[in-house]
C-alpha cells in the first residue's frame, strides 16, 4: 500500500467534520473560533496533499493565503469579541440571541 492523496483527503474530511461538530455543539465563542480555524486547517491538508501528488506549487500557495486570511479573520473575530465583552461580560454564544424571530 502506498499513500496517495486519497488518504490525506479522508483525514482532511474527518478533521473538517470534527471542526464542524465543534461549531455546532460548543457555546464558548473562543472554542467556536478554534473550530472554524480547524476546519480551514483540514482543508489546507487536502490542498497540500493535492499539490504534492499533482506536483504543483499552486496548492501550497493557496495554503499560505489561507493562513493569511485565518490570521486576519481571527484578529477581527477577537476584536468583535472584545467589544462585545465590554458591553456584557460573556463568551457564551447562546447569550447572543437578542436578534431573532
Amino acid at each position, binding site marked *: 500500500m502506498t499513500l496517495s492523496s486519497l488518504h490525506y483527503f479522508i483525514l482532511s474530511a474527518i478533521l473538517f467534520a470534527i471542526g*464542524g461538530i465543534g*461549531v*455546532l455543539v460548543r457555546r464558548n465563542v473562543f472554542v*467556536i473560533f478554534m473550530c472554524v480555524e480547524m476546519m480551514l486547517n483540514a482543508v489546507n491538508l487536502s490542498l497540500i496533499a493535492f499539490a504534492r501528488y499533482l506536483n504543483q506549487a499552486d496548492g501550497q500557495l493557496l495554503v499560505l493565503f489561507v493562513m493569511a486570511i485565518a490570521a486576519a479573520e481571527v484578529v477581527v473575530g477577537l476584536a468583535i469579541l472584545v467589544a462585545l465583552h465590554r458591553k456584557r461580560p460573556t463568551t457564551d*454564544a*447562546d447569550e*447572543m440571541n437578542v436578534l431573532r*424571530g
Partner: protein
Amino acid sequence: MLNYAWLVLIFPLVGVIINAFFGRYLGKRGAGILASAMVGLSFIGAVWMFAELLGLEDRVVTRPLFDWISVGDFNVQVKLLIDPLSSVMAVVVSGVSFLIHIYSIGYMAHDERFVRFFAYLNLFVFAMLTLVLAENLLVTYVGWEGVGLCSYLLIGFWFERKAAADAGKKAFLVNRVGDVGFALGLMLMFVTFGSLSMSQVLEQAMVVRLMPGVATAIALLLFVGAVGKSAQIPLYVWLPDAMEGPTPVSALIHAATMVTAGVYMVARTHTLFALSPTALTWVAAIGGITAFFAATIALTQHDLKRVLAYSTISQLGYMFLGVGVGAYAAGIFHLTTHAFFKALLFLGAGSVMHALAGELDIRKMGGLRNKIPVTFWTFLIAALAIAGFPGLAGFFSKDEILWQTFANGKTLLWALALLTAGLTAFYIFRLVFTVFYGESRVDKKVAAHVHESPKVMTVPMAFLALFSVIAGYIGVPKILGGGNWIEHYLDGSLGWHTPEAAIAETAHASAGTEWALLILSVIVALAGIGLAYVVYVRRTDLPTRVAKSLGGLYTFVYNKYKVDEFYMAVIVKPLRAVGKFFAESVDGPVVDGIAEGIAALVALIGRGLQVLQTGLARNYALGILVGAVLLLAYALVR
C-alpha cells in the same frame, strides 16, 4: 385629435401631480375644480376622438408613444389603440368620472383629506384610461394594477374606521388572487404568441394552429383576472365591503368603471375567447349564476349601499352572460348604460346619506319623496332604467342580452336571467318605496335637518338621469325600428364574426320570437315593480286609506291584501330564504372562509419559520450543514 390621443391620458396625471405636490396651496375648492377640470378636458378629448373616429373608414387606429422595453425578442411598445370599443369606453369612463368629480366637490366638502381624495380620484382616472386605451396587454396590466391600487387606497380612505381599513385589505387580497390568474394568462399568451401586443396576438390567434387547450387555458386564466376585478363568483366578496369607501368612489370605481374592466378585457380579447367554446361557456355560466345569486342577496339587505353593491355584482353578471354567449357588443352596451344608471343610483344614495347625516339603513328612512325631490326623481329614473322599464336605457341593453342568450340556445341561462330581471325590478323598487314612500321612520333629531343636496351634487345627478333615459337609444333593436347602431359601430372592433354571433344573426330573422321575448321581459320587469309596490307600499298604508275613502272597494282591496299575503308566502319569503341562505351560509363561511383560510395558512407557515429563527448561531450553522448534506446527496444521486 387622434394624434394627440395621449393628452386624454395626460390630463388626469397632471391633475394628480399638481394636487399631490401643490394641492395644499390651492385650497379645497381650487383642488376640486382643478381635478374636475382635468377630467373634463379628458372627456372633451375622448369625445373628440370618438367623433373623429366616426368619420374614418378604417376605425382601428394605433398611436405609438414610446418604447417601454425593447431587448431581443422581448418588445413592449407603449401604444394607444383607438378603435370603436376603446373609444366608447373612454367616453363613458371620462364622462362618468367628470360628473362624479363635480359631485364629489360637494359631497366631500367637509372632509379634511379633500385634496388627497381628488389626487387619488385623478390617479384612478389615469389608470383606468391607460387600461382602456392600451394596445399592449402588458400596459393594460399596468392600468389594471393601477386601478386596483387606487381602489384599495380609496376604499380605505376613511381608515379611522376599522371596517374601512379591513375592507381595503380584503379588496386588495381578493383582487390579487384574480391578478395571479391574469398574470399567468399573460405569460402563457406571451409564450404562445411571442407578443403581448393586442393586434399581433389577435392576428396570430387567427393564423397559428394552437395546441388544443391552450386557447382555453389562456382564456380561462384571463377570465380569472376578470372575475376578481369584476367581482364575480367566487371572488365577489370584496365588492360589498368596498362600500365602506366614500360614496362617489362606490359610484365611480365600484359601479361604473373599474369593476367593468373585466368585461372590457374579455371583449378586448374576444378572439381568444371565441377560439374556446369551453371558456365562453364558463364565462356565460359564471355570469348568469352570479347575476341570479347576487340579486337574491340584494333582496335581503337593509344597507342602502350594500343592496346597490349586490345589484352591481348582479348586473356585471349580466354583462358576462352577454359576452359569454358571444354577444360582445350587447355586453358592452349594457356596460355603458349600466355605468350611467348605477352611478346615478349611488349618487342618489349618497345624496340620501347627505340628507340623513350618513344614515344607510333603509329601515330608518321613508317618506323622503317630497323632502329631497331632485334626489327622488333622479333615483326613480335610475331605478326604472335598471328595472328595465320600456324606453329607458336598461331596457334596451338588458333585453339585448336576454335575446342573444336565448338566440344562442342557452335557454336555461336565459330563464335564470329573466328571473333575475324580475328580481332586479323588485329589489330596486323595494329601495325606492321604502326610502321615498310611506311614513318617515327617520330619527327625530335627523328628520329636522333633512335637506336637498347642493346644486354641485344635484346637477351631475340630473345629467346622469338624462343619460339613463337616452343612452339606450344608441342600441334600439331592429324590430323596434332602430338600427342597433352601437352593435354595428362596435363591429369595427368586435367584428370577427364568431360562430355564436353568426347564429344570433340568423336567429334575428324570427321576429315573432323576438317580440314575444321582448314583451315577456317587459312583463317580468313590470311584475317586479308591481310586486314591490304591493308589498312595500300598499300593504302598509293603502288598505286603511282606501277602506275609508272608497268604502265599496274595500272588500276588493281587502282581497288584494290576501293576494299580497299569498305573494309574500309563496314568492317573496322563499326568495328571501334563498337569499338569506346565500348571504349567511355561502357568502360568509364558505367563500370568505376559503380566502381567509389560505391567508391564515400562509401566516401560520410564516410563524413556523420564525420559530426556527432562534437567534442562536449554532442553529443557523446546523441549517447550513443540512443544506450541505442535501446538496451533496443530490450530486451523488444525480
